């Protein structure tokens, strides 16, 4: 027994590279995050408001496409190799998918950033939701395609490991960490199918000038087909940490392996047929479909509550083994000085708060109150922006030493960092939710209007803005501390055994659960059927009413038209010469 790097030095290198890439993306995302916050609150405005959407697109894409998913591929590789106790089958294949993802992310990222360069007519100010009528330069979509294919190959790599393992262990249950990876990847394959269709069949040809127009509602619906399951793609690695690592850090064991399996299956089944809940306000989708989707969404509460129960119970188990007792005083026996533990616990607490605002978003009628207001970013900075991001950062304090064999540079700073994130996010999320309630819009560079004042029942708009700006500053500070700590750790000379790479066995093991839980084919089939049931009619009605390619309208911005015009002029003058 030893650290991960002692067992799997080649895999550790790959995982390290994935983590470091994700940290670079996080750094870029964070810089744009603080710039846009200070801009929209009118504290510091050094960019042109016209460039706000370039900043916002960069923030969204670097954070939730690049940072989260690069981290995920590292985590999942760790989980599969650790739990199957076998190296990856073929490292050159693994490096291939990592390289594809990196090249894709760089192409997409550079295309977005070229939006700042006026002399180059390339931009991709389409926000991370990138549906029509917003149009990006073709390179934006091409980069995304490469990136997504990279993730598909990564999934194939993990499946390949599992198949190889299964041949050698035909009668054994799938180890839980691998089970989590496989179910999540099946969900991802189903979800990304829609975005592949959206990009390859519509957005890319349209951006290349092959089509004049596309059906915006169709591209929106295809985006959200993918857009809800992607939130679980962000969350599942965080859940994985909460199920596998948090009990370990707390000094306990996972409460129930079967319950964890049920949760991951429920997410596989339910996360795709709910995407239309992001479109409650879209005209062109019948209320009946929206109602069905709302019902499905409410069913998702079930695995969320199961998770809350299992994870908290596992922590409590740790606390009681450490001598804790009573209804609440066991909380005092937890290792609050450990940044990895405290960070994840705080992330979980914020997630609970996000559960509240999510419940409001999910209601078809009450959604009208908050739709497209700052409430919505308030919600997802609690979920992806903290539950996921803070868990990743906290987990890194354990994972990076495992992958490098080096000692964490500073534990006290790490502890300060996670607490600072929690405090900063409390300010920012509080402000965002309350601003949303009084109608302040999201995605707006200058949310102030002539002859109109937002009225806050409690406090004032300037107080809300101050909280937002202070929160963002604290978050940025926290981010800097994290990155600095990681940088020093990566070059730390003092090599010290980072502890053992073991996941404690659950209190109630997989043998207590029916074998059908491990039947991946069955769950895939049910998931596909549910998706077909949920989407056939809405998609058919969108296409029959609006046409596959829509009925007209202009793209924003129309950069490609210049190219077409230029080509036409060139051709005509050439023809004139002849």
């Amino acid at each position, binding site marked *: 027994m030893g650290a991960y790097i002692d067992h799997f030095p080649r895999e550790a290198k790959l995982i390290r590279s994935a983590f470091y890439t994700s940290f670079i993306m996080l750094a870029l995302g964070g810089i744009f995050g603080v710039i846009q916050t200070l801009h929209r609150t009118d504290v510091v405005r050094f960019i042109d408001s016209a460039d706000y959407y370039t900043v916002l697109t960069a923030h969204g894409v670097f954070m939730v496409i690049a940072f989260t998913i690069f981290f995920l591929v590292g985590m999942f590789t760790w989980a599969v190799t650790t739990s199957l106790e076998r190296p990856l089958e073929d490292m050159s294949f693994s490096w291939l998918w990592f390289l594809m993802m990196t090249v894709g992310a760089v192409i997409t990222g550079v295309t977005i950033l070229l939006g700042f360069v006026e002399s180059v007519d390339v931009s991709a100010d389409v926000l991370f939701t990138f549906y029509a009528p917003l149009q990006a330069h073709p390179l934006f979509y091409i980069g995304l395609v490469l990136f997504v294919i990279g993730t598909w190959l990564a999934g194939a790599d993990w499946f390949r490991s599992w198949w190889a393992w299964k041949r050698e262990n035909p009668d054994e249950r799938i180890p839980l960490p691998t089970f989590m990876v496989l179910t999540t990847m099946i969900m991802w394959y189903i979800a990304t199918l829609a975005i592949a269709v959206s990009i390859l069949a519509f957005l890319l040809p349209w951006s290349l000038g092959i089509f004049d127009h596309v059906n915006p509602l169709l591209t929106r619906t295809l985006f959200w087909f993918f857009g809800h399951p992607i939130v679980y793609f962000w969350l599942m690695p965080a859940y994985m940490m909460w199920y596998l690592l948090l009990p370990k850090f707390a000094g306990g064991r996972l409460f129930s392996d079967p319950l964890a399996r049920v949760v991951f299956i429920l997410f596989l089944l339910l996360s795709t047929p709910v995407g239309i809940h992001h479109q409650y306000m879209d005209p062109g989708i019948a209320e009946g479909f929206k109602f069905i989707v709302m019902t499905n969404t409410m069913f998702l509460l079930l695995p969320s509550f199961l998770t809350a129960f299992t994870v908290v119970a596992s922590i409590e188990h740790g606390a009681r083994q450490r001598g804790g007792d009573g209804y609440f005083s066991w909380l005092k026996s937890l290792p609050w000085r450990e940044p990895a533990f405290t960070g994840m616990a705080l992330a979980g607490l914020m997630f609970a708060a996000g559960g509240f605002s999510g419940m409001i978003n999910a209601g078809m009628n009450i959604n009208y109150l908050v739709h497209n207001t700052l409430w919505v970013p308030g919600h997802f900075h609690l979920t992806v922006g903290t539950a996921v991001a803070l868990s990743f950062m906290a987990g890194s304090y354990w994972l990076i030493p495992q992958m490098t064999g080096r000692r964490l540079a500073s534990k006290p700073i790490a502890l300060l960092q996670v607490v600072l994130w929690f405090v900063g996010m409390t300010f920012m999320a509080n402000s965002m939710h309350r601003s949303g309630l009084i109608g302040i819009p999201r995605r707006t560079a200058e949310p102030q209007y002539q002859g109109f004042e937002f009225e806050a029942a409690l406090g004032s708009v300037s107080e809300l803005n101050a909280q937002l700006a202070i929160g963002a500053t604290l978050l940025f500070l926290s981010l800097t501390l994290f990155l600095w700590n990681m940088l020093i750790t990566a070059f730390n000379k003092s090599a010290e055994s*980072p502890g053992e790479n073991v996941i404690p066995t659950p209190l109630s093991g997989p043998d207590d659960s029916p074998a059908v839980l491990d039947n991946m084919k069955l769950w895939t089939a049910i998931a596909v059927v549910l998706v077909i049931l949920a989407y056939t009619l809405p998609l058919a009605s969108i296409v029959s009413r609006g046409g596959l390619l829509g009925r007209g309208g202009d793209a924003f911005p129309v950069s490609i038209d210049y190219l077409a015009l230029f080509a036409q002029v060139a051709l005509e003058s050439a023809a004139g010469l002849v």
Partner: protein
Amino acid sequence: MSSAIQEQERERELGHDEFDPIGTLALIGIYFLILASMWLFMYFVEFLGNGPTVVGMI
């Protein structure tokens, strides 16, 4: 965080049958009450208490 430290801090070993997650039940119960009361507030005060926002003239 080395597991040696964790072993040291462990005072007792609790198996599946000796462990009753009452603390968890208490915490989740409180969370549920907060959720329910905040939902009631959002629905009856914020949502129904505000006039229509989309239809008609101000």
